């Protein structure tokens, strides 16, 4: 990772241009050839710095209005298996295991669901419960999105990228 990689990622944070040869455009902005842009991106991808390169979509504008975080209680000994199974359930966009707060909040696994309505989310979650055999869970719907930005922004919080 060098300064040019960081500049490249910072430029791309604003989005790939919608032109015939967008990487050439990025290259001329940075004063490097298109082939260098593509080689750097392929390397960053293979190193795992770039996880995905895709559209950021506002799903609410396409009618996906309901969003829920579901917290699951998983019996000890089932952590890995239950996590893997939850992650495969239809409609799950995120699945994490998190440290609980013993006695106060004993849930260990979390899934995120998006669907057209709360009823659709509830149906999806019921299906997950059935598929995993987990029956202690709580569905926590969102009522307002207060902040949503990429987890890593090169100039703002980029860790070693800054």
């Amino acid at each position, binding site marked *: 990772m060098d300064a040019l990689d960081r500049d490249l*990622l910072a430029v791309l*944070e*604003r*989005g*790939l241009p919608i032109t*015939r*040869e967008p*990487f050439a455009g990025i290259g001329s902005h940075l004063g490097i050839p298109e082939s260098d842009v593509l080689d750097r*991106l*392929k390397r*960053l*991808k293979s190193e*795992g*710095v*770039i*996880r*995905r*390169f*895709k*559209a*950021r*979509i*506002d799903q*609410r*504008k*396409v*009618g*996906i209005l309901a*969003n829920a*975080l579901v917290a699951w209680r998983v019996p000890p000994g089932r952590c890995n298996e239950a*996590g*893997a199974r939850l*992650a495969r359930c239809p409609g799950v*966009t*995120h*699945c*994490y*295991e*998190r440290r609980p707060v013993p006695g*106060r*909040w004993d849930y*260990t696994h*979390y899934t995120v669901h998006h669907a057209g309505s709360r009823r659709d989310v509830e149906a999806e979650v019921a299906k997950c419960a059935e598929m995993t055999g987990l029956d202690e869970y709580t569905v*926590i*719907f*969102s*009522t*307002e999105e*207060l*902040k*949503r*930005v*990429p*987890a*890593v922004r090169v100039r*703002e919080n*980029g*860790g*070693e*990228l800054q």
Partner: protein
Amino acid sequence: MDQIDLALLDALQDDIPLVSRPYDVIAARLDIPTDEVMRRLRGLQERGIVRCLSPVLDSRQVGLTATTLVALRVPEEKIPAVTRLINAYPEVSHNYRRDHTYSLWFTVAGKDEGRIREIIEEIKKRAGLTDQDILELPTVRRFKIDVRFSFSGISARGVGNGRT
């Protein structure tokens, strides 16, 4: 918004090909001309449906190794002020108000657990909360992190204004 737009949204969630003319590749996949891909994509951007096409970076690979989810029990009247407090931290990427006694749920990524502790302590103090008002739920393991929606499954009819 028609079925082609929805198919394009599906295709744009795959990795953008790292080739000189990536929109040609997408166009070939959808069996439409490249000009139409670009025109539709501009349209989706103008309507705010697509924010942009950009790399998603791995927080751990760039040194943000500590990540946590925090839930706060905040009285209704304090929610706007506490939201401003939380959102001001660049380490916070997502913050949602939720239908729960713990009303604010946000994610924090930092270089280590110390920095995360610091942020939570600051918020606690400035928001006038106690330990009982806070759930700190650090990530143990990520099983699935790639958001992907299936749009072509949605009927093109009645879709698109995003109002409830």
